[in-house]
C-alpha cells in the first residue's frame, strides 16, 4: 500500500500562522509539526512509500520532510517524495482539488504499482494503525474504505456524514447535513483499490473532468456506480486543528498527563525532524508548572499551563499562561502572554502584552515582531 498525504492546503482559518507556511507544517505540542502524526502513523503502520502533495507555501514543509529519514522513511525503492505542481506540455498542473491532485500524480503512484492507495490529509492530530484499516478493507472485499469517526449528533452537522447499512456498507454520503441520519463523520482517510480509482479519474478527465474532490465527486460517483464502499470506524483521539481555537484547544489537551493521545507510548512514537539543541535551561528565577518544555529552551520567567517549543527564550519577570509558544520565539523581560499562540520566530519585546481569552485566543504571527528589547545593563 502506498500513501498519499494531501498537504497542499493553506489553512486560511489559521490566519497569521499560515501566512508563510502550509498548515501541515504548523508546529504542535512543542516538538512536532502537524504532518508528523500522519507521517509517523505511516511509518508505524509499515506504509513505507509516501507521496506528500504540496502546493501552498511548501518551503518549510520541504525543509521539514527532507528525505524522510526522520520518520524512518528513507529506504531504497520506497520513502517519501514531495510532489509539487509542475508544468508540462499539456499546460500547468495546479491542483484544483483533492482528487485532482491524485490524478495529476498518477505517474508517481504507478512507479510503485501499488494494489492499494491510502489517501490522508496532513492536518489532523491522531494515532491510527492504517494496516488494521487495510485488513478490514481486504476482509470486506471493498473498492473503497472510508475512515469514519463516531461524533455526537450535534457535531454531525459540521462534518461529511456517511450513512451505512448494517454491514457498514456506505449507502449515502451527506456533506454537513442539517438533519443527520448517522453520526459517522468522514476523517478524510480513504483506502482505494488503485486500478479502480485510476480508471474513475482517467475516465473523468478524458470526458467531463468533474472528479476534483473526493468528498464532493469521487465518493458520490462510487456510490452511484455501486462500488463496494465501506466505513471503518476509528475510536481513538482525533483532532482537526484547522482553526486558531481548535489548534489552541488541542495543544491544551496535549498538556494533560492523561491525554488519550498518549504521546509517551513508545510502541507508537511520533517522530519529527529534530535539530540537535542543548538541554532546556530552567534558571534560578523561573517558575514552571503544568507545562511542557523541550530542548533548546531557556526559561527565566514563569510558565504556567503552557507549551514551549524548541529554542524558545523567556526573560525574567515574564509570565506565560495558557499559551502555546512556537519554535525559536523570543520573549523578553516582564512580558505577559495569556491565552495566546505565539508564532515561529516571533519576538515579543520587553514589557509587551499578548492577552486573549478562552474564546478569543490572541495570535502573534510567524516572524512577527512586537515592541523591542531594551539594552542589557
Amino acid at each position: 500500500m502506498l500513501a498519499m498525504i494531501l498537504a497542499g492546503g493553506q489553512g486560511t482559518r489559521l490566519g497569521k500562522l499560515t501566512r508563510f507556511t502550509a498548515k501541515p507544517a504548523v508546529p504542535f505540542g512543542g516538538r512536532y509539526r502537524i504532518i508528523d502524526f500522519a507521517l509517523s502513523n505511516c511509518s508505524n503502520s509499515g506504509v513505507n512509500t509516501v507521496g506528500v502533495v504540496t502546493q501552498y507555501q511548501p518551503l518549510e514543509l520541504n525543509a521539514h520532510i527532507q528525505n524522510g529519514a526522520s520518520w524512518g522513511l528513507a529506504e531504497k525503492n520506497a520513502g517519501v517524495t514531495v510532489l509539487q505542481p509542475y508544468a508540462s506540455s499539456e499546460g500547468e498542473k495546479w491542483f484544483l482539488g483533492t482528487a485532482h491532485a491524485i490524478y495529476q500524480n498518477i505517474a508517481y503512484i504507478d512507479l510503485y504499482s501499488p494494489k492499494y492507495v491510502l489517501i490522508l490529509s496532513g492536518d489532523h492530530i491522531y494515532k491510527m494503525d492504517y494496516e488494521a484499516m487495510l485488513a478490514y478493507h481486504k476482509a470486506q472485499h471493498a473498492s473503497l474504505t472510508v475512515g469514519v469517526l463516531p461524533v455526537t449528533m450535534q457535531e454531525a452537522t459540521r462534518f461529511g456524514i456517511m450513512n451505512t447499512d448494517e454491514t457498514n456498507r456506505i449507502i449515502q454520503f451527506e456533506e454537513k447535513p442539517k438533519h443527520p441520519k448517522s453520526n459517522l463523520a468522514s476523517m478524510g482517510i480513504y483506502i482505494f483499490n488503485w486500478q479502480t480509482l485510476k480508471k474513475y479519474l482517467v475516465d473523468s478527465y478524458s470526458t467531463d473532468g468533474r472528479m476534483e474532490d473526493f468528498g464532493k465527486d469521487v465518493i458520490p460517483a462510487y456510490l452511484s456506480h455501486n462500488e463496494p464502499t465501506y466505513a471503518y470506524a476509528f475510536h481513538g483521539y482525533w483532532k482537526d486543528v484547522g482553526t486558531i481555537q481548535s489548534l489552541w484547544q488541542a495543544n491544551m489537551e496535549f498538556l494533560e498527563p492523561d491525554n488519550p493521545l498518549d504521546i509517551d507510548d513508545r510502541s507508537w512514537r511520533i517522530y519529527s525532524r529534530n535539530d540537535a539543541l542543548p538541554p532546556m535551561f530552567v534558571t534560578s528565577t523561573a517558575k514552571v508548572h503544568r507545562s511542557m518544555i523541550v530542548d533548546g529552551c531557556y526559561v527565566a520567567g514563569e510558565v504556567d499551563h503552557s507549551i514551549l517549543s524548541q529554542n524558545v527564550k523567556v526573560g525574567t519577570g515574564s509570565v506565560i499562561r495558557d499559551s502555546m509558544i512556537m519554535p525559536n520565539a523570543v520573549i523578553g523581560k516582564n512580558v505577559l502572554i495569556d491565552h495566546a499562540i505565539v508564532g515561529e520566530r516571533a519576538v515579543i519585546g520587553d514589557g509587551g502584552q499578548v492577552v486573549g481569552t478562552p474564546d478569543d485566543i490572541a495570535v502573534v504571527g510567524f516572524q512577527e515582531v512586537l515592541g523591542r528589547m531594551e539594552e542589557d545593563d
Partner: protein
Amino acid sequence: MRKQDMCAIIDLNEPSAALAPLTDERPVGTMPFAGRYRLVDFPLSAISNADIRTVGIFLPKSSRSVEDHVRSGQAWDLDTITGGVFTFPYVATRDYDDPANVHRYYDNYLTFLIKSKSEYVFITGARNVSNIDVSALLHFHQASPNPITAVYRSVPTASANPEQEAFVLDADNEVTDFAASKDVAERKSNHTKPISMQMYLTRTDYLIELLSRVQNSGKFIRLPELIHQEITTAQANAFEYTGYCATVHDIPSYFQANMDMLDEEKFHSLLFSQRAIYTKNKNEAPTYFAPEADVLSSLLGTGGRVYGKLRDSVLFRNVYVDHDAQVLHSIVMQGSRIGNGAHVEYVIMDKGCVVGPDVQLVGTAEAPIVLKKGTTILDQSAAEEVLQS
C-alpha cells in the same frame, strides 16, 4: 578550505580507571554530559564545524557505546560520499609483543592518513571538553614554519591540577617539553600555567614520514607518546584555546564539569556559541512539569516528567521525578526514576537507576555518591548496603 584538505584522528584510548564505575562499560569518550551529550560529541562537532569530513576513530577496549553513538556519523555530516568515519579496533597492549601487530598498529594510521589525501591532520581525544575552532588552529599553524602545533589553555595557578600535563614554553612561546603542571613555572604576566589539551595539528605528510620511520625501526611507540617525543625534539607552536574547557579525569572533575553547565556563562560559551554541538538525535516527547513541580537552576533533557523538587541538577532524557522527591546538586542519567519522597543530593545516577520512595542518598560536592548503571535501591537498608560497598 576544500573539505578534503584536512582529516582528523580521535583517539578514545584515554585513562578511565578513576571514573569507575561510570566507565565500567564505556570509555571516557562516551560518558554522558550536560543532559544531552556524550563527550565525543565535542571533538566530532569541532571537526564537523571545520568542514573536516574524514575522521579516524581509534576505538577503546569497550567500543559498543562508541559504535552505537557515532553510527554512520550522520549527526555530524560525516556520512559523505568522500571521506566519512573510519574506525580502528582496540588491540591489547600485551599483543604488541608480536612484531606483526606492531607493524599493523602503524599500518592502521598510515593507511588512514594516506587514503585521506589530506594536507593536514588534527589529532584529539575526548576528555578535554571544549568547543575549539579548528579552522583558527589551522590558520595559526600555517602562519608558522614549525611542523607541529599543540593546544593549551591557561589555568590560574591556584586552580591548576598539579599532576596535569603542562607545556614548558620558551621565550618564543614554543613548546620545548612537557611536565606535570606543579613542575612548570607559572607565567608571571597572568599567574597561569599552560595546561595541555592533548590536541595537535600537523602536516599529514610529516606524520606519515614520522610513523613510517618508527615502523621501520621495529620499535613500538604509541602515537600520543610519539608526538610528545617529536615535540621535544622538533619545534612546536603553542596555540592557546580561550573558551570553556574541562578535563574529565576523575569523578569530582566529571561532576564539576556538569555543574559548570548550570553557570549561564559557561553553558552559553560551550553549548550556544557560533559553533553548534551536534549529537545523535532521539525522538522524545516534551518534558512535563506537573502543577506541584518546583524546578530551579537545572538542565533537563526531553521525555522527562517532574512532580518533585529540582535544584542545581542535570537531568538527561526520560527521567521521572516523583511527588515530594528532592533532587539537589545531582546528575541523573537517561531513564532513571526517583520515587515518592526520596531525597537525592550530590549523587550521580548512571543510566536506568531507580531510587525508591523515601530513600535518602546524600553525598558531598567533593565525593558525590555514584550509582552504577541499572542500580535499583528500593528502601533505606538497600541504600546503606550500596553506600557500604
